[in-house]
């Protein structure tokens, strides 16, 4: 499978990366090179093989339902959460106005 400029533009939009025409033109052959190369995976006979789900045999641990049990993953840290915000506004994150 290979991609054309239109496809790359659609993918770039899905990924929210603005790309002008020149950037798209550059990207098309690069992506096609890589895609043509990964294509060889199709040769591998994977019948009866389950896709890997956990690289090391391990089961999902669950945590107890306790608020702020570990301060590193608890709430009540608004200043820390907002400390790096480009546009903090009265305790909120400000973003360009959204029209729903």
């Amino acid at each position: 499978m290979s991609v054309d400029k239109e496809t790359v533009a659609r993918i770039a939009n899905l990924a929210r990366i603005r790309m002008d025409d020149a950037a798209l033109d550059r990207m098309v052959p690069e992506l096609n090179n890589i895609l043509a190369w990964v294509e060889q995976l199709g040769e591998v006979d994977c019948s009866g093989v389950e896709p890997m789900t956990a690289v090391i045999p391990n089961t999902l641990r669950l945590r107890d339902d306790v608020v702020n049990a570990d301060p590193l993953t608890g709430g009540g840290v608004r200043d820390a959460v907002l400390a790096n915000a480009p546009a903090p506004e009265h305790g909120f994150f400000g973003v360009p106005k959204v029209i729903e």
Partner: protein
Amino acid sequence: MVSSYRIQGATGEWEVVIGLEVHAQITTQAKLFSGAATAFGAEPNTQVSLVDAAMPGMLPVPNAECIRQAVRTGLAIDAAINRWSRFDRKNYFYADLPQGYQISQLYHPLVGEGSLTIDADEKAGIPADKVIGIERIHVEQDAGKLMHDQHPTMSYVDLNRSGVALMEIVSRPDMRSPAEAGAYVRKLRAILRYVGSCDGNMEEGSMRADVNVSVRRPGEEFGTRTETKNVNSVRFVMQAIEHEARRQVDLIEDGGTVVQETRLFDPGTGTTRAMRSKEDAHDYRYFPDPDLLPLELDEAFIAECRASLPELPDAKRRRYEGELGLSAYNAGVLTAEVETAGWFEELLAASAAKAGKPEAELAKPAANWLLSELFGALNKTGTALADSPVTPAAGAELLALVAKGTISGSIAKQVLEKMLASGDGAEAIVEREGLMQTSDTSAIEAAVDQVLAANADKVAEFKAGKEALFGFFVGQTMKAMQGKGNPQLVNQVLRQKLG
């Protein structure tokens, strides 16, 4: 049995097909993947952890209670519980979604196929035993909240809800009228509240529905559906369906076609409109979340979930009818809300303990008193049963006084008023105000004599054959005795004297 609900179009009748995706907030202290609190109404961004804000390098660790409650909910709708499930990422960009993906379950949900039976309602055209299929329940993260009206050029993001655990309960497209959809939401809400997995508080957003609606000629293939997002009351669900079905019928009949799209409901006008912010043709690029391993449940965990389930509304209603001998109507009302059933059962237990009699013997008067007397009195002041100043034990005390004949039914109404106003016990009020019923035959005879003497003309009429006047004499005697005469004795004495 099929619903007869039809939309009359210019070109004939249309059937509406409805499926609901109900998002129910799982009742927990902490979020699905972080330790931040879930309480409603906190200051913006105060219940946000570094994990919820998707800071670089932050990782999710699942909350066991969320899994447990979703499994219990699944068991309550007789659903298959998947011993092996997995979390997937649903990728899209939005300001209320800090990670740029929602952790959800697409490929292997925790709960599989189940169903629930909605309550029959002849008036609303809901047939008996109408079963709504439930395709799946999966666990996922809620998004944050955007506020658009605080600033002229900016929207504000509050992440307090971001990461709160939701169950998405996906129905089959099995509903055929707004009333059925309403009944489904009500029944689902009741079950969730019985189970305790969701508080069902639609005003606070604990439960909301995405409403999938399509129309078709009866019996034909499904039409194209639209999805109206985030409808947050039973009434709005019904309104959204009515509006959307009518809109689609009008559109098709005018030669247009329904497009599959996401719509918003406007509670002010009861209408739906297409969302302006289009999502990328729904290419969510789901894939298994590599930060989380597969979730494997053992039989002991599931057994514990099953053992912890309470008696559910349908079973309870059948028991109330079968074992307690209540009418279908009373059993239905008593079991519709978990609080009502709980109150009733406490009342019954206290009454049985007091009287030393089996519950079945006391159930009917207890049910009647709760549904007519107490509910009537509470309704007048707009008080919820949970806030009733009269407790089940106090109610049992009052009912016992009636059962023993200490007071009459009409005196009991007065006593209840006084209990509600003062918070005092029934026995204390009856004692203090001397409201005991009298069984003193001489006092009754004196009162009867007085009444008959004062109404000699009516006595003559009675004796001439106007037997309907007997009730008049009973009433007059009771009135003369301020309602305290034992009704049986009053009857007996009157029969004697008039006989």
